[in-house]
């Protein structure tokens, strides 16, 4: 290690044919604070992701009674009490419909992710993860990674209407895509660039040259779709550029084991297991710079989760189950809400299990967790539960409970985007239009 300099590390076989920046996070490159590279002062990368669970929550078992930094995590949030300093709880923020019909389980979810409520899935704007990816998601093998852990191929990450980023539903397929062919062990000291990557690059670059001729022959809407194609080609090209460089060494990297193949089942206990396997794989994918953007769907917004041997799903229970008059809520629905928070703890455990600099991977992430509604029985989009975890590498303050008191949920989306460098001064439409980020969250 001693004789290795950062410069030699970045030198590729093809002498200047490929220019790019590796992302070494080996300890020898870190300065004393453990946060920035010694010679470039470049920080450890910030990652952003969303974590979605379906069918809302039981407010009395979730919303902390105090606000500010001195709040309690009780009831269904008790399992994440140990993460209190790294979490922020956002309660009482509303998706403002302005008369837009509330499509159950869709309008709330996409409303807070795009700032524009829609009566269907035809989003008017990209979801905020896509906007953030444009700023911090470049220079990795995958532009983003989407996961759905309950067997349903759904995703609430949209580039445009009709253009979702599809989810991985099988842990094995996810593993093979990231750690299978094309994966380079970041700590392999005998790096030899694979010339076939260069050949593949030449193919993509030639295809790109056809763009101008092609777009001339199509209408405006289809031009947009062709542009999507060419954007995706450029992303593939970038990915190959990275493959031609020595991978950035990663401290504490251990290549994960390939998971066993199995059919993903939607029973709660099985989903918890699948989710944990996928969360662990995702954490290593983030650690080894395979991607910086992720979207995890624990359960679909109209949740298909269920208990074995019962006729109802989590979603149908929210409609069918009588409210227990003594408790004031639906007890079986509450069970699923609680289980969902146990899965959330698992997710935080996965991110924290990886040491990075003087903290953990979680510290360099900003995770935006939310549901699609507050009280699922009435599909209410007022007070949709939301949380933030991690400080995004020190860009955000943590350990707060902020009560929105009916403010527009777009304030949260604006805060996330501005904090991560998206150059906007306002976000959302009509009553969701806001230029007021939650400054108390910004570091």
């Amino acid at each position: 290690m001693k004789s290795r300099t950062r410069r030699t590390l970045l030198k590729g076989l093809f002498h200047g044919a490929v220019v790019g920046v590796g992302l070494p996070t080996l300890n020898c490159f870190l300065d004393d604070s453990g946060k920035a590279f010694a010679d470039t002062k470049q920080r450890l990368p910030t990652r952003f992701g969303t974590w979605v669970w379906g069918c809302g929550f039981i407010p009395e078992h979730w919303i902390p009674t105090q606000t500010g930094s001195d709040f309690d995590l009780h009831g269904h949030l008790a399992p994440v009490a140990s993460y209190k300093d790294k979490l922020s709880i956002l309660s009482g923020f509303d998706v403002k419909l302005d008369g837009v019909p509330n499509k159950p389980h869709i309008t709330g979810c996409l409303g807070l992710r795009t700032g524009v409520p829609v009566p269907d899935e035809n989003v008017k704007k990209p979801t905020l993860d896509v906007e953030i990816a444009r700023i911090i998601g470049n220079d990795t093998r995958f532009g983003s990674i989407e996961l759905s852990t309950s067997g349903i191929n759904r995703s609430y990450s949209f580039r445009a209407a009709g253009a979702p980023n599809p989810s991985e539903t099988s842990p094995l397929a996810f593993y093979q895509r990231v750690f299978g062919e094309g994966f380079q062990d970041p700590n392999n000291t005998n790096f030899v660039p694979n010339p076939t990557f260069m050949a593949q690059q030449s193919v993509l670059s030639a295809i790109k040259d056809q763009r101008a001729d092609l777009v001339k022959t199509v209408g405006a809407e289809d031009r947009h779709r062709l542009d999507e194609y060419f954007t995706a080609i450029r992303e593939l090209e970038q990915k190959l550029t990275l493959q031609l460089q020595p991978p950035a060494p990663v401290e504490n990297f251990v290549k994960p084991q390939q998971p066993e193949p199995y059919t993903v089942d939607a029973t709660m206990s099985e989903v918890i297991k699948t989710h944990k396997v996928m969360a662990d794989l995702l954490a290593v994918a983030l650690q080894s710079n395979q991607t910086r953007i992720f979207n995890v769907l624990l359960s679909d917004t109209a949740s298909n989760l269920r208990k074995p041997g019962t006729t109802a799903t989590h979603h149908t229970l929210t409609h069918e189950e009588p409210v227990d008059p003594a408790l004031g809520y639906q007890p079986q629905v509450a069970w699923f809400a609680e289980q969902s928070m146990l899965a959330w703890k698992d997710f935080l455990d996965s991110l924290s299990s990886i040491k990075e600099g003087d903290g953990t991977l979680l510290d360099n992430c900003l995770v935006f967790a939310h549901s699609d509604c507050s009280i699922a029985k009435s599909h209410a989009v007022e007070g949709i539960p939301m949380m933030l975890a991690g400080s995004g590498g020190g860009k955000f303050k943590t350990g707060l409970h902020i009560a929105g008191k009916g403010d527009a949920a777009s304030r949260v989306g604006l805060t996330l985007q501005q904090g991560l460098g998206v150059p906007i001064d306002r976000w959302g439409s009509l009553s969701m239009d806001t230029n007021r980020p939650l400054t108390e969250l910004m570091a």
Partner: protein
Amino acid sequence: MTANKFMRLFIVSITICISLLGCERDASSLREPAAAGGPLLVRALTESQYRASVHSIFGEDAPIAMRFEPGLRSEGLLAVGTSEVGLSPFSLEQYNQAAIALSDFVFNPDNPNQPCLDSAADQFDQTCAQHYLSTTGLRLFRRPLSEAQLNLYLEIAKQNFSLLGDFHTGLKYGLVGLLTAPNFLLRIEQTEIVDGVEVLDAYSRAERLAFFLTNTSPDETLLTAAANGQLSHVEGRRQQVERLLASDTLTLAVEDFFTDMLRFDRFRDISKDSGIYPAFNADVLQDAQQQTLLDIVQHLLVDEGDYRQLFNLKQTHLTRALGPIYRVPVPNRKGWSEVSFPSDSAYAGIQSHASFLALHSHPGSSSPTLRGKAIREVFLCQEVPDPPADVDFTLAEETNNHAMPTAKDRLIAHNNEPSCAGCHKIMDPPGLALEQFDGVGKFRVLENNTPIDVAGNLDGQAFETVPQFAQALSNHREIPRCLAERLYRYSVGRDVTWHERAFLDYLNQVFVDVDYRLKPLMRTIALSDSFYAIDGNHSQLSDTHPKIAEAKP
């Protein structure tokens, strides 16, 4: 005209009539209204079209090493979604990966059909490379490569020959390029100017025709017909249409249409509780879809039957795996058996198949609401609005409610809510009519030990039993109309335009005239001017579009 000549003419016309196989049955005397057409389209290949194209061009053994993202359903069809959907970075990554694996397969030295087998490895064989890329490019792009395009892919081959030092490896990357190109993955329709009017060009016509009647890329014969200008006149089109209608590939096209219409793609996400439905396993899930498709192909194509009879058909195809669902003996231990449901059985028609009943149910229970909605949307092309967001469903679906043991009792209670009653009046009768089938399609007469009452009324036709409902559905006047209109949308890959209403009326009447048989309906669409027409409204096209510029006075 002498009597003799007249007689000869008469005989000739009779012969033509006979040779067209019963001309009154197969053709309608109606005349197609003036074609209105729709916009030029850019359509993504569907998974089945991609697979079929690769196999028809590179052989059945050609590997397809990729995962496909879910399609987008629009107007009830994934086919319509193909003209709206975007290509995600995920998909392109997968297509690129598949292109590499497929090219490795084609250029594997052990492959006896390796292109340019006789060319030396250490020299760039320009002639063979050019020949290979232009012939394969023609098949993949469904039109000849322009000179610039050919040079582009030749250049890729040359560049990689220089980089990697092997001719075949270099050429392989030319193929990777063709397989990753937008011209292959997207059906980008082009126009030409004929007599001052902008029309779909011959290759785009061939493409529409091929995907409609074969669900795959145009074959060499069709491409040649396009090149010779055969597709711009009726007789030439008729020749090709008859050839494709007579070919085996018609089955694949019909299967694809019904797979799309019946929403079988949603089986991907389906799961059933194995404790409640032990009989429902992966084999059942697979075979149930195939059962319905086999029945459709048998009845509509082989037997040339009336489409409406699909809804009360007693004959079906079963495997041993499906036996426990339908509780009928299945003679063949392996493969498919032709079976007739007993005359007193509740099973009749494709809406009584597990593929319909299980798909439109919950994981652990049946759902009269989902089934009623599906009958309306899938078979009758009617739209059922989303439920209001703030409804209390507590009564409706509480399956262990002892005061209201059956779904019907619960739904009646629920319908006292005025905001719900309107839609439920539409959904409930057909949904409740199928309540004697459980969440995977097994017949039952009791729910919570109480007899299930299926009686109801389907838009004016009263029924008491499940078979009577099947008859009512079969008689429903929207059944054939829905099929004809959906098939047209499927064939053009978009919703119909306002000005095409007259064509739809025409198509519906033709369907009546040909006794509701599918093949003549497909023939009518494939031969119509509407199928190929593009509208004169070019406002969405670029101002710099050279062809439009020429067309303007």
